């Protein structure tokens, strides 16, 4: 990539300017490596070691258990729903914030960040207060025989709430940086709103969208707190993978528990790799921007 060349030259120049003496550097790097090993690598190794502690057969039979399969299905379903909806919400919110000026814009930005600052348990509790038997809409829902709480809708709602910021957060700075000139150019060339969005805006933000979706998905599949409050822990019905991990662990079914945990760990690893690749694309998009 010829575009990357100047950056490398600059970082090489910066190497020479580092003033810390070698021993200090050595100590700092060693500390970082030890820390990462103890807190990140070791737990990851333990998860896989425990999962395979009774052999590969036990591992796969734990995963093909009906309860496990049901949890995997539910997790995938909830992730698909929340990622899908948050993709739309996120793009719409980022579009509104980045491309238009209106009153209450800062308020909207803080509102988008709200799920990050609220404890997931509280997020779950909100839905219990709204949809529970004693909640605001609970009696009405019950009389119409609509099940929200302790069923898929509440799990999906709680997950959507918790994962809402990811797509919007990934897109707002990107769209703000890109500005509105390309859209204005498209409109003055006769493009309609939809044509402008699909031909100009979306291609420009596609890596940011993927990035947001990736993080959103990882969180949606891994969410525990909020989902735990609204799920009701009905076996084979409303247990997601993280919930099942806890239940199995409390029942001393370590292999099953860690087998499912290993799936989540793999998801995390894949996410990490994909994230690195996407970040590279995002950087490139920025260094080659038209200015």
């Amino acid at each position, binding site marked *: 990539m010829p575009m990357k060349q100047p950056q490398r030259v600059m970082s090489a120049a910066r190497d020479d300017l580092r003033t810390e003496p070698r021993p200090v550097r050595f100590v700092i790097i060693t500390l970082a490596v030890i820390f990462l090993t103890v807190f990140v690598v070791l737990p990851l190794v333990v998860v896989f070691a425990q999962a395979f502690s009774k052999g590969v057969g036990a591992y796969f039979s734990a995963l093909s258990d009906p309860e496990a399969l049901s949890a995997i299905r539910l997790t995938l379903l909830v992730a698909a729903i929340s990622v899908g909806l948050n993709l739309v919400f996120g793009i719409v919110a980022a579009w509104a914030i980045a491309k238009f000026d209106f009153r209450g814009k800062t308020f909207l930005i803080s509102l988008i960040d709200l799920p990050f600052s609220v404890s997931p348990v509280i997020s779950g509790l909100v839905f219990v207060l709204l949809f529970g038997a004693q909640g605001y809409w609970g009696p009405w829902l019950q009389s119409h025989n609509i099940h929200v709480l302790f069923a898929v809708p509440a799990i999906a709602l709680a997950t959507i709430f918790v994962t809402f910021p990811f797509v919007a957060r990934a897109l707002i700075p990107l769209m703000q940086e890109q500005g509105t*000139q*390309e859209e*204005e*150019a498209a409109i*003055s*060339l*006769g493009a309609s709103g939809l044509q402008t969005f699909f031909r100009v805006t979306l291609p420009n933000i596609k890596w940011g969208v993927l990035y947001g979706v990736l993080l959103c998905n990882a969180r949606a599949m891994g969410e525990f707190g909020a989902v735990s409050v609204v799920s009701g822990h009905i076996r084979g019905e409303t247990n997601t993978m993280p919930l099942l991990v806890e239940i199995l662990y409390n029942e001393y079914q370590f292999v099953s528990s860690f087998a499912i945990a290993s799936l989540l760990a793999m998801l995390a690893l894949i996410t990490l790799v994909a994230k690195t690749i996407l970040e590279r694309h995002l950087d490139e998009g920025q260094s080659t*921007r*038209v200015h």
Partner: protein
Amino acid sequence: MSIEVKGLVKKFGTFAALDGVDLKVATGELVALLGPSGSGKTTLLRIIAGLDWPDAGEVTFDGENALAHGARERHVGFVFQHYALFRHMTVFENVAFGLRVQPRAVRKNEAGIRARVRELLDLVQLDWLADHYPSQLSGGQRQRIALARALAIEPRILLLDEPFGALDAKVRKELRQWLRSLHHEINVTSIFVTHDQEEALEVANRVVVMDRGRIVQIGTPGDVYDNPATAFVHGFIGESIVLPVDVSDGCVRLGGKVLGIRADGAASGASKLFVRRHDMQVGPAGSGAFEGKVRHVRTFGPIQRAEVALSGGETVIEIDAPRDRELRTGDIVGLQPRHYRIFAGQD
């Protein structure tokens, strides 16, 4: 297509970007909107294009109300200062964009689009860059592609927002001449915005000078330069020497001392005397309205630029003199303005 703007007002919060602007542009004209940043010229251009909406006023194209239509329906080609090329499309697709988004009923077929894009790339002399991406082009090339893209829809009006503002001096100069000959060739009504007076004077048939949301003078480049309507125009267009003077009973005084020049009907009171640098005639000591000591001389090309400290004050002025008479630091010289203007007021 002719453009007429009447009583245009546009406020951003409490700041009046346009404060009652009237302008007529005839079919086929090439007009420059000239003014410092914040004078409202870009806002005016964006309102004509339909990218902004006025708070009050009218915009008509050939007598037809343009404000009834959005940017999409106005058929106006707009060239942005920072090009605004679609970064994920090749040069070819950038130029083709306006043709591809047309409603199916009027859209050209693929062969027709290709032919038109080739024609436009030929026009801007960049056909060999068709498969490149905007990030691979130089600034001047990007600007020409942006122009080709705007021309693809056969606009009725072409608007250019500081088209050469982001380019280096040499490329800018080339593109100016090129834009002028291009306008001559396609003859579409065009308005371009610039804060560079040289650019405005060189390219346009007519110059519209703006200041603080108002049009302060409209005229040919020669007119605007030779007969500035206000102190602002005199100071903004061309380098000027500005001296605070007092006018009373037809006498012009600088720091209490009477200058040997006529007040030319200027009103009494505190005023400003404007002289072009090259309009100060240099003679021997005692020969002109002013006298001063040369503090510093630099020569470029045909002129020598001298810093002269005027006698009896701390005022230092810069003058441009021909090189027929060599000036040296320390010389006492007499200065006589060949042409000058006096505007009332201290600012």
